[in-house]
């Protein structure tokens, strides 16, 4: 239909020698067709956004916070950007094996109990933000080594919540970078501890749930 209107405009312009007359005639023919048939060249309502999907209230399912396990991987060891906005919009979870470079695995961090937390935000025009925090208690050579290894190291994070569900934090190309603060208190009433925090904005997705069918390789913790 668009080509037909273009031909009308060209023909009228050629006959009359007036470009304005050509454009007006094409516009008039288009309006006439729309009036008679109801067909429009322009998209109608809902063409610019994905249709919304309703959300059903969920009762009697544990939704408590807290986390039991924490895994990290270098972003360079992740094979590709498998978490996308399209996946978030359609499935809302990832349900397959996490694609890793051959031979690369996730490592586990045994954070102290009830210290791991994470959150996510949605910003208009700014995508999503994600953040994660965990604590390890004491201050020794292993913690020093972890701090040094995580210094300016882009990583992705998987957390297993106390609800046993898995949550993925970060993206391959928008990774998390940890900062750490070690506290050596002045009195015996407080404990030595190191808090690791990472916050990232401009992500394409919020914190991403992993389905029960998601799997990944893990390096065993040294005894």
């Amino acid at each position, binding site marked *: 239909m668009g080509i037909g209107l273009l031909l009308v405009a060209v023909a009228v312009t050629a006959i009359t020698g007036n470009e304005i007359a050509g454009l007006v005639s094409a516009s008039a023919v288009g309006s006439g067709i729309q009036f008679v048939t109801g067909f429009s060249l322009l998209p109608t309502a809902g063409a610019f956004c994905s249709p919304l999907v309703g959300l059903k209230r969920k009762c009697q399912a544990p939704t408590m916070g807290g986390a039991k396990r924490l*895994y990290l991987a270098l972003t360079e060891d992740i094979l590709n950007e498998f978490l996308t906005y399209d996946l978030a919009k359609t499935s809302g979870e990832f349900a*397959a*094996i996490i694609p890793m470079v051959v031979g690369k695995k996730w490592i586990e961090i045994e954070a102290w109990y009830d210290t791991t937390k994470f959150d996510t935000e949605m910003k208009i025009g700014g995508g999503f933000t994600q953040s994660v925090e965990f604590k390890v208690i004491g201050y020794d050579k292993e913690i020093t080594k972890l701090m040094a290894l995580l210094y300016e190291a882009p990583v992705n994070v998987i957390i297993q919540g106390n609800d046993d569900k898995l949550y993925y934090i970060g993206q391959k190309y928008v990774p998390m970078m940890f900062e750490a603060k070690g506290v050596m208190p002045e009195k015996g009433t407080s404990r030595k501890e190191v808090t690791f925090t990472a916050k990232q904005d401009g992500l394409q997705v919020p914190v991403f749930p992993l389905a029960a069918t998601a799997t990944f390789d893990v390096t065993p913790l040294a005894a």
Partner: protein
Amino acid sequence: MLKFETKDKELLIWVNGLTKTPESLTQEELAQLQKSGDTRVIDAKAKKELTEVSPA
């Protein structure tokens, strides 16, 4: 019969809330891994038949 093939002696696999060694995976878990796209899970019977019919 599904089988997990790897040369990695220190591999743990996170599956259904647990980290398991390849040897301790059940047939159901192996089927789940295969369904989720893990190419290291192979059908031992099909592989054996393929080996038998292939020319030497």
